[in-house]
């Protein structure tokens, strides 16, 4: 079955559901690393969003375009600089950041071309991950870290606290944090404390530039 034929309902990740709810209907959105377009499809068809995507894999791009989504084959690290300032209301990195080499560069570009950035990623500080590494002595796998170390597209492994440290360093504003626990329970946080970093499996951040 091709991606276009499958119902998205069965394959929507929880972070994608959360992101879809965060985006105001009618916004202009760029989904960086949009994969097979599941999130973009929801945004365009259920939230009336003017949605665009960039995807590295040819298979992903072809799937997206053949289901009518405006997606280009490209690389976040080289192609974001083509877009003008403030071209989008939101730029999304849904589980894309761990696969990016130039993290600072991409985050900077994200908040140049978009008024807000939405970033979701698995938390390497989650207690099960820590326990697998600590007790098992092996690189951890989980639902949000499904691939073996040698075939994972992810090259950056970081925790919620690592990420908030970086946002501070870059001078970005955290507008909203939604955490997802191991049981799928979600919660809104104002900041990341030690316990949140321990109990959160993945999180969605809404970030923006500091007002001038």
């Amino acid at each position, binding site marked *: 079955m091709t991606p276009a034929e499958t119902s998205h309902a069965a394959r929507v990740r929880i972070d994608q559901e959360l992101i879809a709810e965060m985006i105001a209907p009618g916004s202009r959105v760029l989904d960086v690393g949009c994969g097979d377009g599941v999130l973009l499809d929801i945004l365009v068809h259920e939230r009336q969003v003017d949605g665009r995507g960039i995807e590295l894999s040819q298979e992903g*791009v072809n799937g997206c375009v*053949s*289901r009518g989504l405006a997606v280009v084959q490209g690389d976040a690290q080289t192609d974001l600089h083509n877009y003008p300032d403030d071209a989008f209301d939101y730029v999304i990195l849904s589980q894309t950041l761990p696969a990016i080499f130039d993290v600072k560069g991409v985050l900077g570009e994200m908040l140049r071309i978009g008024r807000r950035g939405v970033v979701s990623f698995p938390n390497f500080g989650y207690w099960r991950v820590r326990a697998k590494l600590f007790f098992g002595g092996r690189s951890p796998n989980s639902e949000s870290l499904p691939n073996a170390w040698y075939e994972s597209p992810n090259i950056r492994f970081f925790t919620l606290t690592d990420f908030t440290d970086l946002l501070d360093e870059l001078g970005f504003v955290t507008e909203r944090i939604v955490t997802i626990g191991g049981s799928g329970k979600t919660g809104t946080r104002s900041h990341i404390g030690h316990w949140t970093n321990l109990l959160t499996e993945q999180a969605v951040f809404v970030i923006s530039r500091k007002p001038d």
Partner: protein
Amino acid sequence: MTTNPNDGVGRAGESIAVEPAVTDLPGHFLVLGAEEPMHLVSGQLLGPFTVAYQTYGTLNAEKTNAILVCHALTGDQYLAEPHPVTGRPGWWERLVGPGKTVDTDSYFVICVNVLAGCMGSAGPKDIDPTTGQPFGLNFPLITITDMVAAQKLVVEHLGITQLFAVIGGSMGAMQTLEWAARYPEMVYCAIPIAGAARHSAQNIAFHEVGRQAIMADPKWDGGNYYAASDPPERGLAVARMAAHITYLSDSALHTKFGRNLQDRQAITFGFDADFQIESYLRHQGRSFVERFDANSYLYITRAMDYFDIAAEHGDNLASAFEGSPVRFCLISFTSDWLFPTSESRRIVHALNAVAASVSFVEIETESGHDAFLLEEPEFFRILSGFLRGAADQRALEDAT
């Protein structure tokens, strides 16, 4: 309307009229520029002149289901029916027709023979009424912009204010981009396939080889070969043979022909077509001259050479599409070295720079530039999906 043939090439201020050709070609013929001549990019005025076009499907009452297909260098308007001269299948019959990817049960498909062409639209083989002789090289130089301007007049004649889509491969992609850049309000979505926003130095070079092959044929006679009914077939065939190589790819040639010999067991130590590839190219050359005019080939290749959208915008391609409402879908093919993916990507980057709506896919194939004319299921699937998505989007916009 009279013009003085002694005025030379410029003939500034006076309109060049083209006598309608007597033809039994199928399709539609429209006389344009009769009341007001068309301004050509060269500075000359053209009118009255004829354009030939063909349509498939039915235009709906709201006139919202029209798709303009722009043909390539040696194509013509007979894209979805047997060719009236050769009897071979239309060049896009795989793609366009009832129930096909471009479904003529839902869409009204229009294709206009380009200006300077030789299938019914005004071109160098037509009669100059001031001399009573065929124009030959006295026909004005035509650009892609001029071809599109003539198509726009046809579209307006049909009462269509916005085309649902403009689609074209190769030179058709150039016209598609020109449509989007020049008349964005008349184009809902644009699908340039295996195209470029400018003709590259390498491509100009190949065209020059083709033109020199034609001009080197003594029968070409400065372009005045019509009276003798003995056209420069050798020159045109060589031009076609050279060009045909650029439409394929090394791997496609290897797969299809390799070093296989043609109807023989061993090489003959001579200059016969020993190899299948030679025989194939000779056949391509021979069959091309049956349906194409050598002077048209000169004019249309020149139009492609002159094409450079950015040149009119201070060499900034993005500014040609500033604020464009058009939804773009660019398609390139991995083994196309004539219009490589990098050319499409350059357009995508320009469109991103103005935050235009753009989709871009590169199709994996070994068929080279010709892939847009062949059976490429992934290409068909993407085109069909994009058209469906655009139709849904437009229905949504109309409803709100």
